[in-house]
């Protein structure tokens, strides 16, 4: 078992390395195949006199042949240096990412936690009462929210809760104040500003968890040990949660890890709608301004996080289910 485990980790690591290499290359290619170029986008005026254009091309190192740019990019990335941003020249990409990451991590961890818990809960209930009105209600509302474009959902919530009811601010992560009297006020302000973005992200992503949990639960409910548990006279909650629910939860580990990439995609839209200063908004602005180094850095972080999350999900799988052998 130990040897097999080690072998598995080695195999997975090799595969990860391959994925990583592909990501590294795509990361360089994708921003550059977008129509347009960073120089024409940088200045407010789209037409630049040839000397200005030339000096900007040199400033960004774009006068070098593409293969040389690629070599520099690979060498720098491996050293953890993503270069200097075009659109926030002369700031380094790493500095910019570090400024923005905490906000996105805060939004994502909160909404992923809530949507996972909510998804599991509703999925279990739905499967337990499958075919009932509750089940249909859970499925219908989940599908409706899931199929809604997240920026539209965000805009609706912003309009309803922020403007019409006036309960929440119209955007940003904090209020426009000169300073805060104390840290508690700051925390309160941050929570207040993050409420609708988190709600939007949660509503937009809990449904997939619910549906998968429900499917998995339905399968588990047909197992003999559930019947046995019921036959033993165990209470409904005990059977539902401890015997069936816990076993049905296994696929959730993979789903949550796999969904991470799409949640980041959701964060791009959500942060843009709510002017939330995280990596999502950063990616959006970087695409608009064709900021290649910034895009490379941001995509790299997202890709590495997703790859790592999937790797750990695989490991966790073995821990959680002793039946799984590698």
């Amino acid at each position, binding site marked *: 078992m130990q040897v097999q485990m080690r072998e598995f980790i080695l195999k997975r690591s090799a595969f990860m390395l391959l994925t990583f290499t592909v990501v590294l290359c795509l990361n360089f290619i994708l921003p550059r195949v977008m129509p347009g170029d960073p120089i024409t986008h940088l200045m407010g005026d789209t037409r630049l006199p040839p000397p200005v254009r030339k000096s900007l091309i040199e400033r960004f190192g774009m006068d070098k042949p593409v293969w040389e740019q690629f070599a520099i990019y690979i060498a720098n990335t491996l050293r953890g240096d993503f270069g200097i941003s075009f659109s926030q020249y002369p700031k380094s990409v790493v500095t910019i990412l570090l400024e923005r990451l905490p906000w996105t991590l805060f939004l994502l961890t909160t909404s992923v936690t809530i949507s996972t818990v909510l998804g599991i809960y509703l999925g279990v209930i739905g499967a337990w009462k499958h075919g009932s009105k509750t089940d249909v209600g859970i499925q219908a509302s989940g599908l409706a929210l899931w199929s809604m474009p997240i920026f539209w959902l965000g805009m609706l919530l912003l309009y309803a809760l922020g403007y019409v009811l006036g309960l929440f601010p119209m955007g940003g992560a904090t*209020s426009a104040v000169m300073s805060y009297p104390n840290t508690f006020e700051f925390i309160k302000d941050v929570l207040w500003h993050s409420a609708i973005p988190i709600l939007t992200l949660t509503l937009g992503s809990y449904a997939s968890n619910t549906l998968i949990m429900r499917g998995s639960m339905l399968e588990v409910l047909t197992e003999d040990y559930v019947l046995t548990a019921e036959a033993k006279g165990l209470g409904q909650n005990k059977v539902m949660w401890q015997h069936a629910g816990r076993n049905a939860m296994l696929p959730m580990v993979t789903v949550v890890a796999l969904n991470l990439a799409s949640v980041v995609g959701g964060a791009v839209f959500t942060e843009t709608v709510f002017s939330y200063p995280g990596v999502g908004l950063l990616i959006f602005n970087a695409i608009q301004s064709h900021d290649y180094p910034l895009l490379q850095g941001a995509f790299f972080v997202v890709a590495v996080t997703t790859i790592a999350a999937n790797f750990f999900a695989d490991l966790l799988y073995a821990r959680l289910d002793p039946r799984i052998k590698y």
Partner: protein
Amino acid sequence: MTANYFVGTPVKAQTVTSGGTLILSQYFDIDSLNPFTMAADPAFRVTEKIYETLFTVLNNGTYYPDLATSWSISPDAMTYTFNLQHGVTWQDGQPFTSQDVKYTFELAMSNSALSNDQLAVSELKGVDAPDNYTVVFHLNSPLVPFLMYGGYDVKIVPKHIWVNVSDPAKYINDNPIGTGPFMFVSRTPGQQIVLKAYDNYWGGRPHVDGLIFKVYTNADARVLALLKGEIDGAGSIPSTSIGSLIGQPNVTVIKTPGTNVNNWLGYNLRVYPFNIRQVRQAIDYAVDKNFIYNQIEMGIAMHGSDGDITPAMTQWADPNAPLWKGNGFSADQRIAAGNALLDELGFKLGPDGVRATPNGTRLEFELLAPTSPSDYVRAGEAVANDLAKIGMKIDVKPLETDTVINIVYPSAGIPNYQMYIMGSGYDPDPDAVLYLEFFSNPPVPSWTADSEHYRNDTLNALLLQERQEPNIAKRQALIYQIQELLADDLPYIPLFHRVGIAAYRTDKFIGWNEEGIYSQFTALNLHLITTTTPTAQVITETPSWVWALSTVALLAVIVSVGYALNLRRKSKT
């Protein structure tokens, strides 16, 4: 001989109540606070409050004193002398002198990577500072627009700080020190920039205590935030949102004319028959500029003036502006006049309603319309519709904006296109647009005039004269002459001049005026704004129920975690 461009009198501080924090929106974050290399529009708006220039320009194109009180131009237009304000201090308390001005310009001259000031120093030979309050600029060749490029574009930086900067082009400048009315406090990337009033500002301390630029990337949220009172002023308002702002209590909506923004229909004069002036005039007659103004721009623009100077620049715009052939004629008269011109040339109407030239070339052309901003494609369709009436068949081809730019202004080779639509903004001096777009005298044709292959030697002579004429009245006459020539020769056809839309609230702050360009909210203007509620703290208070809700959420998390752990323990036993 000297010329004084000043109008108006310097601002005097009045006794008013001060206080309050003014909150303005920004449509995206600034890129940098380095005045030499920043590139994005929001950065210019923020640094303009911190750094000052020798003078500023009002929205009609006239100059207004800033760090310089007056100046003179030598008769040969080679030497420019500026007299500086006395009693100006940097925000760190150091005195401002002519040495700072001299240093700033010399820095830009010595380092071509300081891109924002390269136009200003292109003809600069040297700078003298004979005393603490006088600066003398010597040019290599006569260039009156140096006043604009040097006086208005170059933000003066403190020598005592920048002299210690090893590479100014790569300097982050995260604590900018200027002479302006507001000083830098903090920046939260992606969120906001906080400024506060500079107590010892030479023009008198601003009445407001603080000034915050808050980023709202979502245009609809920006408008709603203004309606809600979360912000006091917002620029870059989409024209589709004007309806929801007009008539709302305490909200004022204004058009802010760009001083020099042209949006035009261009053609390649290498392509026969665009090289014939009467053909271009026929097009000018046929294009319905009123329709473009009313239906496509919804009245939020200015009629295109064929003299290429925005009518809002009253200092320079021809008194008859907006100029265009069809101005004042009915639709039938315009079409008839256009058809008559083409008939005269012997361009016969074919059976399908498309004219052909005597050598058989059908008047059938492709028009490249950039997809962004979105009104270009619609303007292109309107043009196609209009030109069909004079027997020209136009095929509108929407393309990504950068692609159109690269076709019309290729970095190498001869431009290969037929017609296009394009727009551009320029410095608020007539030379900025006229010389750049139309000067075509070899060996140094302007790169833009070269694209259209336009050449008019009378115009070239006038352009050279205009930029060497230090007398303002004489220069104005030359600029009028150029506009009339252009309106007749039509190297391209301006369709409209874009304006910006801004809105502000009048319940918390008063004293807004409409001076200033590029933005309603210039330093010159914000300096004068006063609060109506000096005692009330202008802070968006976080409601206390946030605490209650957070506590409930936290409790829920603790309870569920506890429950889960409990389950786990139970199942183990």
